């Protein structure tokens, strides 16, 4: 993975010193809260219900064992011994003291980490495929580009006070595992007819109050022009994005109101007028960046497949785990392992300090020290020998990390909701817990399924993209839950449609049950839920959900 050079080290050290002084000035009364808020947000520090919350950046979800151990140490020393992995591949700590934050950032800097721009109206963490570099279906490793964007977008002088936040995702594989279409700016790496590698650029995707999918604004952008083109796209947004209404300030509203073609034309004109050479990425630089992500020196001896087969035959539980939690690796004899942070009945995405340390140890022993965070709020060990899977599974199982439910109905994406978050209008974690507990027995029968839950309209839980999405809202002081159907992430991304009146908190599980029953009854030939939904429409679901008893 990418290692900081002297520039990067020096930069984060300077950032820590700057922030330490900002906190000092705040505590000394030189800065008002209104003045300090954007400064702390640019370091990922929110004020939530119970305390400050620090959102630590995990650039494109890439961790190593040293970083993960430091995160464990920080959660133990400065927080309550656990953290919450988010849908932006970041980590949130919910019990932070302002006065501790400069020291926390210094600890992060010591392992090449920071919390820069995990909030605020600027570039956020650039995300990508958690299987980047090892996925069998990828054209090229997307991480060098994500890293180039990360660096260039860090404390950008022109774009640190945009109308609203700005999220970029990159995908380079046949299957989009980065939900590219729901990003302000999406990049699909592909090959054009001349055989050159470049980007298809999408703009205007996003969830929140007005969920929209990104639309293509450029079919082929040469790699060298990546930064100049993003700069042009941002300059047009900075100039014309709305600033009078918070809910209309994302780029998706600009793209929608201008029309994608007009926005694309504006960007193109700006881009052609700009000094593209000044920020062009020379091939040597791309190659240098790519060399930071070379694959590890795998043990190429054949995996003992007979032993793997015996273990699978000997344990139905292990067989399930292999089926759901391991994925094809491009190197023979290896697997990509997803560690589920969705144990049934617990908080989706939460991880204790001890669990982080165990994963760090396992990464060192079995995955060349590498760990990834998936936006589905799970962890990934990207390079595990297949004949080590059984031992790995046993150790995960013993630590409460052995859930075999990746891509199943209990693998719920869920924001922290009103148990922690100052923006939430309803709780989301208890809903996830009840649904998972209720559905666990049938998850195999249901098969691939995604439930996504947000505790407010900002949609951190991606509810619009869930096969079933659940949005918690406040109705006259009571938590009620709006249900959407038919959403999907990835290549066939779709925004779910609201099925009808919201249901009460204690009715959610029963409602999901009824919807699932309709699906199981009417699906054909192994259809996924979105396919069934598109084929049969809303009516049968509506009937089942709202029929008088």
């Amino acid at each position: 993975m990418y290692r900081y050079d002297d520039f990067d080290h020096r930069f984060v050290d300077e950032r820590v010193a700057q922030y330490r002084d900002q906190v000092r000035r705040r505590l000394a009364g030189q800065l008002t809260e209104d003045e300090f808020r954007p400064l702390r947000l640019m370091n990922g520090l929110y004020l939530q219900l119970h305390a400050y919350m620090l959102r630590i950046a995990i650039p494109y979800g890439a961790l190593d064992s040293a970083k993960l151990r430091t995160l464990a140490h920080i959660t133990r020393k400065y927080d309550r011994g656990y953290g919450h992995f988010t849908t932006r591949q970041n980590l949130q700590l919910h019990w932070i003291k302002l006065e501790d934050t400069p020291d926390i950032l210094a600890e992060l800097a010591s392992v090449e980490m920071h919390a820069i721009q995990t909030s605020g109206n600027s570039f956020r963490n650039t995300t990508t495929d958690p299987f980047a570099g090892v996925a069998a279906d990828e054209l090229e490793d997307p991480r060098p580009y994500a890293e180039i964007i990360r660096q260039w977008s860090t404390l950008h002088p022109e774009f640190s006070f945009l109308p609203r936040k700005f999220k970029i995702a990159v995908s380079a594989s046949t299957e989009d595992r980065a939900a590219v279409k729901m990003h302000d700016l999406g990049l699909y790496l592909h090959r054009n007819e001349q055989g050159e590698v470049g980007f298809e650029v999408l703009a205007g995707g996003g969830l929140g109050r007005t969920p929209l999918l990104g639309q293509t604004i450029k079919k082929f952008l040469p790699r060298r022009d990546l930064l100049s083109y993003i700069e042009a796209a941002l300059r047009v947004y900075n100039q014309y994005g709305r600033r009078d209404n918070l809910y209309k300030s994302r780029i998706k509203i600009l793209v929608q109101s201008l029309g994608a073609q007009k926005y694309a034309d504006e960007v193109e004109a700006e881009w052609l007028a700009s000094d593209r050479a000044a920020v062009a990425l020379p091939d040597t630089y791309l190659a240098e960046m790519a060399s930071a992500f070379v694959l590890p020196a795998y043990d190429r001896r054949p995996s003992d497949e007979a032993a793997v087969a015996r273990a699978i035959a000997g344990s139905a539980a292990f067989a399930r785990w292999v089926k759901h939690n391991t994925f094809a690796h491009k190197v023979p004899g290896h697997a990509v392992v997803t560690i589920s942070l969705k144990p049934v009945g617990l908080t989706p995405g939460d991880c204790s300090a001890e669990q982080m340390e165990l994963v760090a140890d396992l990464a060192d022993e079995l995955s060349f020290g590498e760990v990834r965070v998936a936006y589905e709020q799970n962890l990934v060990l990207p390079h595990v020998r297949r004949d080590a899977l059984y031992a790995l599974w046993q150790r995960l199982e013993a630590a409460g990390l052995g859930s075999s439910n990746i891509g199943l109905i209990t693998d719920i994406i869920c924001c922290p909701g009103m148990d922690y978050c100052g923006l939430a209008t309803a709780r989301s974690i208890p809903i996830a817990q009840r649904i998972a507990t209720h559905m666990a027995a049938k998850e195999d029968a249901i098969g691939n399924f995604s439930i996504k839950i947000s505790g407010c309209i900002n949609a951190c839980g991606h509810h619009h993209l869930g096969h079933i999405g659940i949005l918690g809202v406040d109705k006259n002081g009571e938590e009620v839950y709006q249900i959407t159907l038919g959403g999907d992430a990835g290549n066939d991304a779709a925004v779910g449609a609201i099925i009808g009146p919201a249901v009460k908190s204690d009715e959610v599980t029963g409602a999901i049950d009824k919807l699932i029953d309709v699906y199981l009854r009417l699906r054909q030939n192994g259809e996924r839920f979105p396919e069934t939904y598109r084929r049969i429409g809303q009516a049968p679901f509506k009937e089942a959900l709202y029929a008088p008893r």
Partner: protein
Amino acid sequence: MLLAEDGSLGEDHWRHLNDEEAIPASGPVTVSLAQWQKAEPALRERRDPLGLRLPNTIAPQEIAADLAHFALLVLSFPKFTDGRAYSQARLLRTRFAYAGELRAAGEVLRDQLLFMRRCGFNSFVVGERAVKESWATAFGEFDVFYQEAPDGRPWVMRQRLGPRTP
């Protein structure tokens, strides 16, 4: 009070005319865009320095042809969270090669100063706090930058690549 890019503090010797005021025959003055458009011929006749106050909603290309007449451009930050003038400044400095004084006015806070200077501002309208809180130190908080910018300071990609080959 004015803060200069070298960190020195001084008084503003410009007069900022409102649209109803008569244009004085001498002395440095700034006018609004409307006033410039209305009284351009008269303003061009003056010998003393002329400045323009540009709202952050105007694209720099709209005044590109007139830039030679101005010794000062005042760009506006109605709120410090409204960052349109950063783009204006950058375009004025690079695409339109404006070389005069570029001044940030409005809600200018200490922790924006470095961003502003990188985008090409070289003077800043500040209050008493700037003295008490020694705002000039804000310019030196970083010497590592990841972006090419009008202030011409070295940026990381270029530094890594070494001197550019022709």
